């Protein structure tokens, strides 16, 4: 069991579905949902003692998109980078987007939606 998983995605339908998959898979009971990169950064900065083990990050979001979130995340205390695994979870199967993740070494995986039980357990087994 992980302490917590954070979903950063503006799409509430997806958040609902992904939270359901996570809970059904019994990976964790604690799913933190943030609808923008700004909200997520705010949470990470203020809840230092309660940071998630795993973040699923969407790319296309209003305000601050996934890429901008990654840039800002990289500027945080490096403790965050050691403790948090970031997985891109996006609709885009555009190879350009997939290639772009190579610019960010904190990104562990690139997954296209939807998150399934199988994919989730693969990720957890690989990194935890």
């Amino acid at each position: 069991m992980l302490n917590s998983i954070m979903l950063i995605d503006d799409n509430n339908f997806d958040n609902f579905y992904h939270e359901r998959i996570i809970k059904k898979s019994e990976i964790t009971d604690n799913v933190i949902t943030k609808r923008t990169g700004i909200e997520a950064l705010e949470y990470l900065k203020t809840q230092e003692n309660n940071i998630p083990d795993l973040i699923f990050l969407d790319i296309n979001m209003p305000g601050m998109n996934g890429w901008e979130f990654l840039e800002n995340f990289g500027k945080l205390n490096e403790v965050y980078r050691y403790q948090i695994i970031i997985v891109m979870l996006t609709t885009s199967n555009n190879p350009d987007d997939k290639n772009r993740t190579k610019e960010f070494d904190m990104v562990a995986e690139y997954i296209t939606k939807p998150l399934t039980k199988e994919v989730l357990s693969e990720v957890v087994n690989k990194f935890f």
Partner: protein
Amino acid sequence: MGKNLINLTELTFQSMIESVPNAIVLVNKEGRIAYINNQTEKLFRYDRTELVGQSIEILIPERFRKNHPNFRDMFFASPSVREMGAGRDLFGIRKDGTEFPVEIGLNPLITADGTLVLASIIDITERKKAEERFRLVVESAPNAMVLVNKDGVITLVNAQAERLFGYKKKELIGAQLETLIPDRFRRKHPDHRNSFFASPSARAMGEGRDLYALRKDKTEVQVEIGLNPIETDEGQVVLASIIDITKRKEQESIIINQMSELGIKNKELEQFAYIASHDLQEPLRTISNYIQIIEEDYWEEMNDETKTHLKTIHHSTDRMNALVKALLDFSRLGRNSKLTKVDFSKIVNEVISDLENLIKETDTKIHVEDLPVSYGYETELRLVFQNLISNAIKFRKDNVPAEIRIGYENKEGQLQFFVSDEGIGIESKNLERIFHIFQRLHLDDQYEGYGIGLANCKKIVELHRGKIWVESEVGKGSKFCFTLPNLKL
């Protein structure tokens, strides 16, 4: 002593006249020939004795004879050294009655026997012929041509020039060249002209400037002008060859516009593909996800009919998903690809081993001939063979295993590949259609597919500047052919 001197003078004069290259005729006030030289005998083919004492009009064609005595009298009234004819064309007539063009210089000669006129006659047949040839060449040139002398006066134009400028020939000849130049360029033009004559050489006019010509109706045409200096008896002249490039310029600007429009459209298309990949897939996925939730949470409560409907919805969203993905892939074909050396035997064998399961299941036989090595987009070319081979398997005859042949020929520097089968074949009316995106000939439950495979093939082959087509007979089979340029890097 005095007599001798005169004789000597006469002798000197005589031998001088005999030695000049021109025909010389001395004529007295009455119009009688007093003396002719040897050249005259040759030119007019008379013997000296036949001419001396005769009226000079004997050497003039009949039609000019009547007026000639008047001209002659006028000359004697105010004798001076000058050219005869004042610009009119002059002709001589030989003993045999043939005519020839001449140029005649007149010199008054005061002697003891009164004033004589010394006429110096040059046969200008050859020069006239050369002029005529030149005129014909100019006339038959496809461009407008204008001959201009050092003073900027137009001396010759052809029919094309009449057409281009809207003037009649007689309006242009004798006019200043600057008539044909728009006002704003007129002031500087004589300077340009002078510097051309200062160092004449065949060259294009304007050195990169846009050139315009002015027509009679005051409209302007954009032109390109070639200049050729020509040395003539009248001095240095320049032959200007003028091409109306208004149409070409229009077409150029149309092409430039279309290119930039094409650029914009391509960007839009890429944007569209991206939106298709993202925004269209999102709601589809939500539908799929929620179907799954319903299936998980309410499966027990649903009756069979509801379950079937739910499955249909599921199936449709999956299909739509695949179509959207196919569209994205199609639009991205060839982007970021690099030309590399392609071993066609290798890629075809790789495709065959990728399709191994399908080939085994369907008992398909594939015969691959020797294939070449050339340059191309390898990943894309692999996709072409994959599509053609799996199509050949898919569209086999019922209960007859597919038999596929793959080979190539070298045709006029192009590689022409083929993938042939003995399957169901294609009706002739559909031979073109099958290469269009999302075109399908069969119902879903007969042959599954998205109608994208051959569209991909066509796009890939065309990326290589090749052609793809199919030869087919219903019930006999199909032969897909495509050409690729045999690139050597």
